[in-house]
């Protein structure tokens, strides 16, 4: 069988067994890594695959979280039921934001998405439509129920969150090896050539934003039910930057690389804090230094994606010459 698949199965098996050896703290760290993994995988579709510099991804995370919180606290809709709705609402938000800025490139797009993220956060602080609870946010959000079983403890969330990560990895691998996934690559490599090869680049960008936003929205819903309280503070510019860094450091476009990035950027600082002491304050140093080293020695990230090679029938050899 294929090596990647085996390493994935082994890693997920290790994660599944981790509650046997890890204490509450480390399980919470793993949960945090998992949530950021979902966020980074979703941004990876936009940033890594399509090459669109979105540095306002926390906005879609917030849309999903608030959507779940409002549906749950006002209409009593269970969190897991609301998951698809949150995904759709965030996707709509993604498409809506993307529509007017679709022609922007690189740095311009980056600046506008930073602006979008900030506008949304400020709207939340100002209690938009009287639904978001202002700076205090929304509290009293239900825990998720799975088959009538209430998910509450860290290890229970571990299974929920990492189950979701596993599903995301599975689906996104399929996406990458599909017509749509290739279209994203063409778009990133050369937009003019992509359009000239018959690809609707505008629509492809829109879909990339919609899919990325949908998954960030669902991550938001999971987050809301895990915390039971959400506020605008959880969705600051810094969150967007963090997700962006995970994708870039891990290896833009490569799913395994992005997962590795989530462990490094979210998990490693906790590890250092616990074992190297006094590291808490050096977190920023760590990021800055890591970024600098990467930008000098490995601009494509730790694990960049490669081209897809196809297993071909043998016919070609005989015909040549």
């Amino acid at each position, binding site marked *: 069988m294929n090596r990647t698949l085996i390493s994935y199965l082994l890693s997920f098996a290790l994660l599944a067994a981790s509650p046997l050896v890890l204490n509450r703290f480390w399980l919470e760290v793993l949960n945090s890594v998992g949530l950021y993994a979902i966020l980074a995988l979703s941004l990876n579709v936009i940033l890594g695959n399509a090459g669109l510099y979105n540095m306002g991804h926390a906005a879609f995370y917030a849309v999903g979280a608030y959507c779940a919180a409002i549906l749950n606290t006002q209409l009593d809709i269970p969190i897991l039921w609301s998951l698809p709705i949150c995904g759709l609402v965030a996707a709509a938000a993604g498409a809506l934001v993307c529509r007017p800025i679709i022609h922007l490139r690189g740095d311009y797009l980056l600046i506008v998405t930073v602006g979008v993220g900030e506008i949304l956060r400020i709207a939340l602080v100002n209690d938009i439509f009287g639904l978001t609870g202002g700076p205090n946010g929304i509290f009293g959000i239900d825990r998720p129920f799975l088959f009538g079983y209430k998910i509450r403890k860290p290890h229970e969330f571990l299974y929920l969150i990492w189950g979701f990560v596993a599903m995301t990895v599975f*689906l996104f691998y*399929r*996406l990458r*090896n*599909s*017509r*749509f*996934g*290739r*279209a994203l*690559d*063409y778009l990133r*490599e*050369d937009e*003019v*050539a*992509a*359009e*000239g*090869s*018959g*690809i*609707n*680049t*505008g629509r492809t960008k829109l*879909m990339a934003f919609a*899919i990325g936003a949908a998954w960030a929205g669902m991550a938001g819903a999971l987050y809301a039910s895990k915390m039971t309280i959400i506020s605008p503070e959880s969705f600051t510019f810094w969150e967007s930057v963090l997700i962006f860094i995970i994708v870039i450091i891990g290896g833009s476009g490569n799913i395994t690389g992005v997962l590795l990035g989530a462990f490094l950027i979210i998990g490693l600082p906790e590890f250092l804090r616990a074992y190297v002491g006094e590291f808490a304050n050096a977190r920023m140093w760590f990021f800055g230094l890591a970024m600098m080293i990467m930008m000098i020695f490995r601009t494509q990230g730790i694990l960049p994606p490669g*081209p*897809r*090679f*196809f297993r*071909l*029938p043998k*016919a*070609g*050899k005989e*015909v*040549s010459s």
Partner: protein
Amino acid sequence: MNLLRVEGMTKRFGGLVAVNDVSFSVDEGEVVGLIGPNGAGKTTVFNLITGNYIPDQGQVLFDGASIKGLRTHKIVDAGIARTFQTIRLFQKMSVLENVLAGQHCRMTTGIFGAFLQSPKARAEEQAALDLALEELEFVGLRHEANNLASNLSYGNQRLLEIARALATKPRLLILDEPAGGMNHQETDALLELIRKLRDRGITVFLIEHDMSLVMQACDKLVVLEYGCKIAEGDPESVKNNPKVIEAYLGPDDDEE
């Protein structure tokens, strides 16, 4: 029957009139050459046809219907595919992936289709792969399928662009200086390829500086100079047209 008709097409870039009131037509099944000195506006004509630019004035008709103002991918979908003067491949992707790009507009699987991987989606994917391999075979690059596009020689990169364009199943294939950067042997092979394209029933419209290739390959020539059409007709008559000779060789000194 005119497959492509350009009527009174004009394009200005600021003060420069890059294409000036140009009209011509390309018949189904023909190989037509667009020639003229550097900067005459040939590439601009191509860009106007493929929707990269929109004409300031004039009409572009494909198969009797106006395609003016359509987005490029719509025009590709309608049946016009192109290659670029400065090679525009997806350099970091494999040769086969490059050709698959052309199949995109003939496929339908969307995001949910990709998630579910239904038998229909798988069959479509397989068919696209098969067709891409066939087109690679056609241009003679089958054995490079899993190589990176950037590893190909200049001449082979041009062929790969043709294969990618062919994968869109075009009725009209537009080639911008396909022999650029090719050696003698490669140019000969290209001439052979153009003939094979005609045999497949694909209409070819090409820009080329290699006169020997143009004379051998084309049924008809259109000549541009400073954005204006100065001649149109079969290669022999165009070759002997005084205006064309002057455009290429400069004004005749003997007349002083």
